[in-house]
């Protein structure tokens, strides 16, 4: 763990500028994947996460550009806005379950995205918004430059992972797990399911909005195409390929799949097919995702070394 963090701290000083940018996008994907996992651990599989990431990006970008609100204030407001929209969507769908819920989330997400597409003012229509302010100079550090912003994103990502980890290990996390295992039993022990669904959605969407804020003040522009169903499918695929049963599954998934995503740039048109086939393969032959493979290997290794087997994962 410490080695990974030290490695990430040293990385921008040795890597080419392009890879520093790629790493920042990677951090954003990690935030998205981890916050998505929080929502899907209570079995609210949904297709609006990327659009809420867009809500964060649009809100933060528009506040900074049109109202002149400082970037570091606009980003959390974007997160709150995303959280608000997430709660609104969940409230509408509170009585829906199963397959109907999953596809209805797609419809509502499209409604938000189409709003950006439809209204040239204030959302810029299909070309989106450009000339969004970059991060400013704070305390003598110019966050507009690549390396300070890299460390800023890294800190935000680590803080969010830490918070989500604490939530996972807290009473609330246990309640989420109970709901995902057996909703009826969880309800009979006094867990308020609708309230927990809203809570998970509010927290997860907030972090998605933060990720959007991080993105928009680096790119300096947004457009609705960034947040379409394809991006959502990539997120879904990467999280599920990683595995959602344990906390680190989505991190593994995004790390592996994002690397493949960047490496497959020359085959850009075939890329979706590769990811589509890989998710079908994983679901049929390896339902726990890559993480289940890792825990199997660890268990096997421990057996070989004669260590008494512990609970896998």
């Amino acid at each position, binding site marked *: 763990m410490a080695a990974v963090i030290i490695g990430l701290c040293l990385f921008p000083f040795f890597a080419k500028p392009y890879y520093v940018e790629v790493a920042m996008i990677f951090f954003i994907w990690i935030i998205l994947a981890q916050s998505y996992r929080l929502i899907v651990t209570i*079995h609210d*599989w949904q*297709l609006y996460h990327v659009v809420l990431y867009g809500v964060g990006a649009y809100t933060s970008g528009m506040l900074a550009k049109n109202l002149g609100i400082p970037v570091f204030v606009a980003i959390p407001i974007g997160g709150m806005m995303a959280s608000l929209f997430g709660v609104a969507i969940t*409230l*509408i*769908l*509170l*009585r*829906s*379950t*199963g*397959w*109907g819920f*999953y*596809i*209805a989330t*797609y*419809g*509502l997400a*499209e*409604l938000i995205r*189409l*709003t950006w*597409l*439809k209204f040239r003012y204030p959302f810029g229509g299909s070309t989106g918004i450009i000339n969004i302010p970059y991060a400013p100079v704070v305390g003598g550090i110019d966050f507009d430059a690549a390396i300070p912003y890299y460390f800023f994103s890294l800190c935000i990502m680590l803080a969010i992972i830490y918070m989500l980890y604490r939530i996972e290990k807290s009473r609330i996390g246990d309640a989420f797990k109970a709901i995902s295992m057996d909703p009826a039993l969880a309800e009979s022990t006094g867990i308020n399911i609708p309230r927990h669904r809203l809570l998970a959605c509010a927290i997860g969407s907030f972090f998605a909005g933060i990720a959007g804020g991080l993105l928009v003040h680096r790119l300096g522009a947004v457009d609705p195409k960034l947040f379409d*169903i*394809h991006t959502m*499918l990539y997120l*879904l*695929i990467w999280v*599920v390929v990683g595995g959602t049963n344990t906390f680190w599954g989505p991190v593994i998934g995004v790390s592996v799949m994002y690397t493949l995503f960047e490496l497959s740039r020359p085959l850009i*048109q*075939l890329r*979706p*097919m590769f*990811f*589509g*086939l*890989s*998710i*079908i393969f994983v*679901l*049929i032959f390896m*339902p726990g995702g890559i993480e289940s493979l890792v825990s199997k290997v660890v268990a096997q290794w421990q057996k070989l070394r004669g260590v008494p087997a512990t609970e896998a994962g």
Partner: protein
Amino acid sequence: MNSQLLIQTIANAVAVSSMYALIAVGLTLAFGVMQMANLAHGHVFMIGAYTVYALYALIGWPFWTAVAAALVVGAVVGLAIERSIFRPLRGDVVAGFIATAGLMFVLEVFCGEVWGWGHMRNIPSPYMHPFKIMGASVAIQRVLVIPFAVVCIGSLMIFMRRFRLGRALRAVAQDPETASLQGININMMTALAMAIAGALAGVAGGLMSTIYAVTPALGGHVILPALIVVIVGGMGSVGGVVLASIIMGFVITFVTTLVDGVAALMVSVTVMALILPIRPQGLMGRVIN
């Protein structure tokens, strides 16, 4: 809106309703049997459209032979999806949902690689002359899908009520365990549902191929309204889908004519969002415990 435009718009609305009904009936049928359906169903529609493009516009088969081929191709694709995805993932709604989401990617790239990216395939219509109805001229090609939808869905409803196989399908939808105790082969029933679903989507795609811009993105464009129709109508209910597709077809066509296509989608999603909190099971859906 003058009377001529009004008549044309109504004709269009009925045609669009028929198309959505053909697509959504397959989704609702599959949902009834499996509690989930194919998210890549719009892509089966697109494959139907490409089949007609390949056989009719490129090779020069007669239009109706090409449409019949699209029906067969759709059914085969449906069967293949059932065999390769839904059967191994039986009973796991989440996995089925995610796997068919991945399938959207696969089929989109497949069509793009086979028939070319970005090119809008223009397919000449076999019926160039419009016909006159109350002073308004309506393109035959646009309304061709209406009699097809009526015949297909009508015969499907009769099949579900009168025939042993259709009744078995409904039995599985009501209670799979009891149905299998009666000697109904569940695998065969899901295969049948997916084949019918694929065939209807394929024939709809074939018939509408002369009107739509046939690109690899077509599948993604038609699936959202079809999903809305299924949710609003009530998942698992064929009658509900017919009702909802008429409502949605008219809403979408009229808003498209008066404003634009984006606004039409927004309005239809809003209708869904207004109905779901009140009737989460849809207009004519059953409550599933």
